[in-house]
């Protein structure tokens, strides 16, 4: 029985060391030669947000900051309260949707990114945060159908939905059922009352599988997606302008903000555009390139890192 106990002891050690090695992180990051702050960056639960979080984060890491990343933290319902309570310091927002979220759907967002961001800041100051300059890069909600569905119901724009929506199932992330730029907006602006709503994910693999497989007839996608054409989807035109200025805007807590971060972030935002977003989304979605890699490449190409 002694040999059994020894074997059991060896097995335990082996098991524990396997667990420990799996938990080990891969060092990396810049050497801490300066005493700059450690910041916590978060992103929403879709790949474009991870890419943006990495872009802003890695630019600061190149300047000696240490960044803790919390990718795919969740929907805005999770991320914004986390910022307000100080659990995270930064997330890459979208001007119009963030405004309509924090003002509880008052309808103050417009197609003007500057005005929308300014209005957003009046609310953000109350929670100790600030939105920096908005980027020309735009990613708004969009609604896509398959080519077959578009042909079946003669759909080219969202106004075409009203008479046929009662026969269609809408798909999107769970929060689409309660967000002004999603299901409620389609109802109030376009008069589209859908037969049913199916909760999927935020423009991810479930949405694509459900749309292509026919489990939903129309689904929420993002206007900067790179793979919509190759999948044979038709994005319906937002002719009544339900979606507003959803320009990328860095949102950061004022406590950690300084002039260096402001300057770097505004330069990055100015250099980003929708074409870049689409290309990176395509790489991430179709070629499965790591968001980390895409962010690093973008920063290098635009001279933020060497």
């Amino acid at each position, binding site marked *: 029985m002694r040999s059994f106990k020894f074997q059991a002891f060896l097995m335990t050690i082996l098991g524990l060391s396997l667990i420990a090695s799996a938990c080990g992180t891969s060092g990396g990051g810049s050497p801490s030669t300066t005493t700059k702050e450690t910041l916590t960056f978060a992103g929403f639960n879709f790949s474009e947000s991870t890419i943006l979080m990495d872009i802003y984060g890695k630019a600061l890491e190149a300047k000696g900051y240490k960044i803790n990343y919390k990718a795919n933290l969740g929907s805005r319902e999770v991320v914004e309260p986390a910022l307000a309570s100080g659990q995270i310091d930064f997330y890459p927002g979208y001007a119009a949707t963030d405004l309509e979220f924090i003002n509880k759907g008052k309808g103050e967002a417009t197609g003007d990114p500057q005005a929308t961001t300014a209005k957003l800041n009046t609310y953000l100051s109350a929670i100790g945060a600030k939105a920096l300059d908005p980027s020309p890069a735009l990613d708004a909600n969009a609604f896509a159908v398959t080519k077959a569905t578009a042909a079946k119901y003669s759909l080219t724009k969202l106004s075409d939905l009203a008479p046929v929506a009662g026969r269609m199932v809408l798909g999107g992330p769970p*929060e689409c059922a309660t967000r002004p730029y999603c299901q409620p907006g389609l109802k109030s602006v376009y008069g589209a009352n859908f037969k049913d709503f199916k*909760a999927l994910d935020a423009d991810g693999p479930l949405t694509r599988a459900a749309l292509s497989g026919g489990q939903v007839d129309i689904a929420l996608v993002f206007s900067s997606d790179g793979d919509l054409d190759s999948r044979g989807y038709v994005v319906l035109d937002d002719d009544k302008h339900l979606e507003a200025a959803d320009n990328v805007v860095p949102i950061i807590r004022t406590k950690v903000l300084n002039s260096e971060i402001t300057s770097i972030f505004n330069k990055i935002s100015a250099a980003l555009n929708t074409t870049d977003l689409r290309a990176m989304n395509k790489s991430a979605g179709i070629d499965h390139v790591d968001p980390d890699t895409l962010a690093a490449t973008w920063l290098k190409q635009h001279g933020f890192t060497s």
Partner: protein
Amino acid sequence: MVFLGQVIAWFLNPAHWTGSHGVPTRVLEHLQISGIAVGAALVIALPIGIALGHWGRGGLLAINVSNVGRALPSFGILVIAFEVFGLNNTPVLVALTLLAIPPVVTNSFIAVRDVDPELRDAARGMGMRERRVLFEVELPLALPLIMAGIRTAAVQVVATATLAALIAGGGLGRYILDGLGQRDDVQVFAGAALVALLAMAVELAFSGLEQIVTPRGIKGNPVGRMAVGVVEPRLF
């Protein structure tokens, strides 16, 4: 206390009891997925466990495979199965069936193997053929422990069927996942409470069933009533 009041209000709201997102529909979906998974597990696991227990061989292998099976992460299996089978109920059924198999195999093997060897001897001595020994002597005596294994499997499956919601499936997990996405903590709590209640109801139902199918002769038998949960076999 305010939160509890909100949860009660959620349950009292008639809108939550009708339609394709209502509680009855979700409970039915949940039971449907769970039922098929447990059924499939029984079809696979019962013959294996009982046969091995009857022959008294291969038990060590069966139990070890079973134990490894218990370490498999249902979430991981779900995602892999989604890649293979696509967006339908098959991935969830695969994950839940694999979850239900170990307790049934282990319990039915132990139950049949541990029937008093003297009884088996007596039956054979009376001239019974193997099949009669199995069905008329071993199985009735093993039934309480086998039922305990099925009960364990059923409760685990009902509690885990919330996973279906992760790949756009139905069932009570929908309230939990949608509540998280919409930051509706009341909905999350209501969903979790419903799952817990359903699991307890299944536990009670199967306990009742156990009592009904246990032959009267061994009802007073301590072995018959020790059939709680899964028996951990001694390997050494």
